[in-house]
């Protein structure tokens, strides 16, 4: 049995790591040594997910040293974030969001996105690998003896598609991590809750319950639905559905407040960052004490004069209610779709941030989209709700969300949801990941569910091409919804022939709602069907005589670690090829 297991929450803006000795039962959240200033190493519970790519000679020799790396060329964590606010062109941020960005070469060196040419950029995968290495080294340093983790649970957003999961595994590989298993973040949050609640679990939930996990991190919002069922008298948890990838989180809230307060003030970029942090603190102050009407914020000047050069701002409870509560958790109908702004012809390629900040509208769309499991109702009725993410330290945001959901439920003839009291909102994911490792060793209850999407290969029908008209693409189901880890599915024989000796590209589709499709089903006109989303294409070059056609069968497998693999098996012969998810460009 594995002895040391570690759980890693690789977040968009903060990372955390937890560990446990399965034999002794010891272990906890690991304190992470990181630079807080040149030459100063301090321990923090969170590692801000930022990398500062230093210029040669910018800092004295050894100033960026860490206990496990004497001469790194970059800084990670607290100092990277603080100094990067003054040198934005050398700051790598939000690498995780770039991992799931389909319109860009995600293995290419593209961060910092707006760096001048002489900065040696790194890929989102490399950035993630550096965070992972930092976290694992921190754990090793905390043990004070050389030891390797036998098992690592790495969490990803439930909304990460197959390609983003594959890239996360690639980052783990680059960091030198072994025996890595992926776990969806909302599930990790529920595992943390299960661990905290212990045997009381059976009193808190019953068969027929549908638990909605709302996870709002720094940069992403993630929804999952988990059903409580029964088999042979035992309670079971099944993850039924996950939401789309929404780039919207707590950071957006602080930024919105800062933009509001910055009106009429002449602030430089650094002062604006200071104002953003000030807003976060003022917000927490107001949320913590309902009697306070307003909270002051001071923005220092850059120079050594502090008195007289400090700009004052004030966050009022009114602002908070209007901007945060009404702006991010608006009272919206369940069928009100998230607004999408019209894009101009030439859009700069950046992160595809959510255009509608209304979390309730995204949630409504998610619940209504999952009509297949709504049992005849207008939308899926959750019976319980679990919150995760630092944003929900503000009880008022939770209350509003519950209020909106209950309004939807009462209009549709349902009963109100109840809140499951969660664990630590910042550290639950890392803690839950470690608990999951324990569960994998046969203790406690495991959440089942398999893949949260069905996957399809695009097949172009044989028809004459018409200029200006996209031929309708058929989608061939290769992996059904809910395919379990460690299983594989053979696609029934089709007339597939692969060209060998040159790259072959398949279009690739996913659906988070079509749970009835079986392997081998062919669906017409996928590209224009809203239930499908086109994901990164898959590509392979089969070795062999160039231009020769080889008849093949397709096979899909969900690996034990939670990634999807597609293989081509030669019909008459022993040839086997793995199809790689092409993460470079969507239309490549």
């Amino acid at each position, binding site marked *: 049995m594995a002895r040391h297991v570690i759980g890693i929450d690789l977040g968009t803006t903060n990372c955390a790591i937890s560990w446990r000795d399965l034999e002794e039962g010891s272990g906890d959240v690991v304190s992470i040594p990181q630079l807080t200033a040149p*030459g100063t190493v301090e321990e923090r519970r969170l590692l801000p997910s930022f990398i500062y790519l230093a210029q040669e000679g910018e800092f004295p*020799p*050894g100033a960026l040293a860490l206990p496990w790396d004497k001469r790194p060329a970059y800084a990670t964590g607290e100092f990277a974030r603080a100094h990067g606010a003054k040198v934005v062109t050398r700051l790598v941020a939000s690498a995780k969001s770039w991992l799931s960005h389909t319109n860009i070469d995600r293995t290419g060196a593209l961060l910092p996105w707006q760096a001048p040419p002489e900065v040696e950029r790194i890929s989102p995968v490399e950035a993630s690998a550096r965070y992972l290495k930092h976290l694992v080294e921190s754990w090793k340093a905390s043990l004070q003896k050389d030891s390797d983790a036998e098992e690592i649970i790495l969490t990803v957003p439930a909304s990460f598609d197959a390609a983003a999961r594959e890239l996360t595994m690639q980052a783990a590989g680059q960091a030198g991590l072994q025996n890595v298993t992926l776990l969806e973040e909302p599930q990790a949050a529920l595992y943390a809750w299960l661990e905290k609640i212990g045997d009381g679990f059976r009193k808190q939930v019953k068969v027929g319950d549908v638990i909605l996990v709302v996870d709002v991190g720094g940069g992403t919002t993630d929804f999952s639905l988990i059903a409580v069922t029964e088999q042979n008298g035992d309670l079971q948890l099944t993850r039924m559905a996950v939401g789309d990838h929404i780039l919207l989180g707590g950071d957006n809230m602080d930024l919105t407040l800062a933009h509001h307060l910055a009106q009429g003030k002449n602030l430089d970029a650094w002062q604006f960052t200071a104002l953003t942090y000030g807003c976060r603190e003022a917000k927490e102050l107001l949320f913590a004490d309902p009697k306070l009407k307003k909270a002051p914020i001071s923005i220092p000047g850059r120079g050594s004069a502090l*008195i007289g050069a400090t*700009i004052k701002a004030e966050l009022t409870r009114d602002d908070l209610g209007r901007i945060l509560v009404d702006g991010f958790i608006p009272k919206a109908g369940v069928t009100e779709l998230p607004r999408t702004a019209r894009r101009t012809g030439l859009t700069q390629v950046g992160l595809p941030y959510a255009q509608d900040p209304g979390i309730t509208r995204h949630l409504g769309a998610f619940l209504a989209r999952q009509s297949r499991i709504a049992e005849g109702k207008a939308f899926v009725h959750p019976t319980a709700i679990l919150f995760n993410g630092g944003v929900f330290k503000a009880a008022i945001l939770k209350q509003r969300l519950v209020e909106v959901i209950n309004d939807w439920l009462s209009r549709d003839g349902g009963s109100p949801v109840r809140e499951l009291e969660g664990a630590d909102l910042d550290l639950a994911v890392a803690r839950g990941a470690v608990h999951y490792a324990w569960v994998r060793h046969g203790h406690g209850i495991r959440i089942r569910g398999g893949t949260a999407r069905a996957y399809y290969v695009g097949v172009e029908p044989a028809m004459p091409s018409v200029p200006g008209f996209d031929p309708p693409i058929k989608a061939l189901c290769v992996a059904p919804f809910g395919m379990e880890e460690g299983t594989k599915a053979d696609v029934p024989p089709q007339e597939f022939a692969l060209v060998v000796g040159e790259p072959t590209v398949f279009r690739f589709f996913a659906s988070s709602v079509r749970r009835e499709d079986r392997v081998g089903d062919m669906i017409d006109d996928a590209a224009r069907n809203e239930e499908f989303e086109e994901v990164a294409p898959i590509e392979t070059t089969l070795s062999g005589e160039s231009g020769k056609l080889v008849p093949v069968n397709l096979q899909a497998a969900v690996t034990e670690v939670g990634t999807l693999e597609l293989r081509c098996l030669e019909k008459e012969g022993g040839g086997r090829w793995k199809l790689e998810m092409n993460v470079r460009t969507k239309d490549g």
Partner: protein
Amino acid sequence: MAQIAFWDRMKMAWRVLISAEFAGEVTEGLELRATARAKKAAPPERVHASGLMLLAAFQREGRLIDFLQQDAGGYSDEEIGAAARVVHGGCRKTLAQFFDLVPAAQTAEGAPMTVPTGFDPERIRLTGNVSGKPPFKGTLKHHGWIVTGVRMPSISETLDPRVITPAEVELP
């Protein structure tokens, strides 16, 4: 290199010639003296590096040095108040990160308190009409502060701790 008096050197030269073992002792002795001298000669900023580091941290997080170095004379209370918030917020965070602080006396300030026989004069200071023998009955004026935990950052030996904060030059 450590200095040895001339006559001592002469005597040793003879013994070194006679005994190789003694030669080893001499070199060792010299090395020890060299390290002792190096220690003695450590520059003051090295000796007080942790104090300087604390200043740097208070400046970094709470602009304490900027605040104290500025002449507050010509400013209004409101301006000083706005600046003090920056100092208070930042230094308070740093203080909590580095130290765990608890009151030295658990009684509420202003409440009566008995000072027992054999009290710890380091933790309790008597004021007012100090005479007679404990136990004393008095009123707690200030509850005192005790540090129960210290988590100072580790600082690089290669950097000059005298640099509390560097000059900042912004490039266009």
